[in-house]
């Protein structure tokens, strides 16, 4: 397989997907649009979370916390301050980034499993805060959000929201791909692969560990804000432990430490439940068999397996230009 063949396949696939997704609003009905929008949101969440568990290789359960912070921050600014929509959206992303940096601090001192437990506790603590947020966050009953305006365009029905969500998703993935291919991405990967080796090449491990958490918080919070936008409502029930494990599974199933992996994982695990309804417990058992199968036979995930077949598909951490 020459490298050009792999590149051509990659380009053709992404072109097809993009054409299809932008054409979808005209063709498909409300349900398909909603599922595609949820797919985009899960793609951004999985991509954001991949910074920490994929590139940095740290076991962390903070993705739903960042997701919730993004959603709630967006909602609070929209409901209470009346600031324009872009400001609310930006506030959510920055809040997620800051939360990422804060969660990153203990990561410097704690070993693998302790960090996993601290982030799990942080996640449950955030849910308690949403529940008791009273008038600010709408407390237990959640908050109804006003429909936003963006560049004069009213985002009311799903089609308009979907186009905006899709645009943000494409930009987010493009940015993540660029980061992965430039110094910061390479530095995070090298700190994750060998901290002392990276330090011996003048890469400060502390700075890039925190950067990985910050970026993870930033991008996952974008997904959170998009989720609140799509649903038009935010309530504590949406950020449960199940949501956390689903996000984790998406990155693992797709292929950790790659850009395309989490995208595939997010698409698969958003579509799968739609085809599997009404049998109590079946969904849980499907997830466990899916995970077990992958962990035993294809630990590098779907994309990892694909790269093994077509080596030239393997992603480079090089050249933002190429």
């Amino acid at each position, binding site marked *: 397989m020459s490298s050009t063949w792999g590149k051509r396949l990659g380009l053709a696939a992404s072109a097809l997907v993009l054409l299809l997704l932008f054409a*979808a609003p005209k063709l498909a*009905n*409300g*349900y398909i649009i909603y599922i595609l929008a949820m797919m985009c949101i899960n793609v951004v969440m999985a991509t954001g979370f991949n910074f920490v568990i994929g590139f940095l290789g740290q076991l962390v359960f903070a993705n739903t916390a960042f997701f919730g912070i993004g959603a709630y921050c967006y909602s609070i600014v929209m409901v209470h301050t009346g600031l324009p929509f872009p400001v609310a959206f930006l506030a959510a992303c920055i809040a997620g980034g800051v939360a990422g940096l804060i969660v990153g601090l203990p990561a410097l001192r704690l070993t693998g499993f302790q960090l996993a437990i601290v982030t799990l506790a942080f996640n449950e603590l955030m849910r308690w805060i949403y529940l008791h947020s009273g008038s600010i966050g709408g407390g237990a*009953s959640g908050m109804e959000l006003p429909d936003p305006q963006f560049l004069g365009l009213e985002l009311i029905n799903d089609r308009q929201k979907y186009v905006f969500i899709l645009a943000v998703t494409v930009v987010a993935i493009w940015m993540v791909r660029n980061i992965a291919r430039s110094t910061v991405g390479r530095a995070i990967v090298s700190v994750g692969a060998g901290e002392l080796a990276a330090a011996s090449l003048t890469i400060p491990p502390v700075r890039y560990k925190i950067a990985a958490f910050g970026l993870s918080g930033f991008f996952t919070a974008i997904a959170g804000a998009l*989720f609140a936008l799509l649903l038009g409502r935010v*309530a504590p*029930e949406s950020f449960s432990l199940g949501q956390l494990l689903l996000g984790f599974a998406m990155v693992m199933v797709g292929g950790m430490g790659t850009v395309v992996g989490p995208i595939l994982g997010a698409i698969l695990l958003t579509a799968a439940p739609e085809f599997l309804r*009404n049998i109590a417990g079946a969904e849980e058992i499907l997830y466990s068999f899916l995970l077990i199968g992958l962990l035993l036979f294809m630990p590098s995930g779907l994309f990892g397996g694909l790269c093994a077949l077509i080596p030239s598909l393997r992603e480079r951490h090089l050249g933002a230009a190429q």
Partner: protein
Amino acid sequence: MFKWKISSAAIALAALSALQAHAETGVTKDTIKIGMFAPMTGTSAIFGRYTIGVRAYYNMINAQGGVNGRKIEVVLEDDACNPATAVAATKRLVSQESVFAVHGGVCTAAVMAVKKELQRENVPFMNLGAAGASLVDPIASNLFSPLPNTTVVAQTLVNFAMSRPDTKRLAIISHPDDWGKSQLDPAIQLLKDKYKIEFVENVTMERGATDITPQILKLRVSKPDVVLSFLYPTETAIFVRSAHKYGLDAPLLGCFGAPYEDTVRRVDDPDATKNLYIFHALGGSSDGPEMSKWVEMIKKYGAPDGTIGDYDLSGIGGAQVVVEALKKAGPDPTREKFIEVLNSLKNFDTGVLSAPISFSADDHAGVKSGEMMTSLDGKLASVKTWPTSKK
């Protein structure tokens, strides 16, 4: 590519259903499509049993020739009590299955997530079992709730407690979630406005908690005359058991979430449940004479999941209202006519619920009252005020 397959399938489906709908979406020459959604999986899967009675009733109606010559076709979607999944479920019902009306929703959070969307699409929406007062307040033109909502339940419990001779000290235990709060607040409000007193103790219990000793002890220390509880079924049973274990012998009132017979079976300790009263919306106890007709119906037409109890029966009232409105909407029903008929429904006795249902243009809360189920000298009894024979 995986995604390509989904979209082409979806496009084909959309085209197909577009062909079908000519008179009114969801209505064909000989069928009328009703969409249902309820928590069939996840932690609240127990509430999925609301659908059993409803589907049995629709099957019975179909067996008797259907409505104005049309059979009722039911499409059931799972919402797992999660807002995002509920939105997916209803969108699938409305835009993919293009149902005529939606009859579903048991978790308030899920129903609130879909309320605005269904109102915008003007799809008639009959609430299956959700009790949140926020469903019908602020009112939505297309959303009707046949069951007593949380405000009605809370007020019934307070009035019932205060109907006990010289009762001054009330205590309360509830979940901190949306459902619990939407009963705690009206209870506090009513006690302050009508009876001019406050609760002597107010504790919360986490969903899934297995040990609530501190709560029980705090309640016991406050020496209440009566204790009100707004808890889900499992937690209600744990509460009743722990109360007995730690000698909290005040009478205990349970809310609409946990039916009396199920709670007694779960507590499995007669002297723990000898002073227990639980809010009851049905016309009688599930193993009593009034309900036997419906129990037989479920056995004959439905697919019971274990012993038939309150959950299976509670949905039937709503199903009867839907069928009644479809009959009155005439040979070629439209959504507007259906809603119009519902708005003019007066004192419709379902035989299942303890009170008749009536709706109007500005009041979609069907049942405004309920009774308390308890056992008087060994027999299940539904009472409105405090039984004189009991302390």
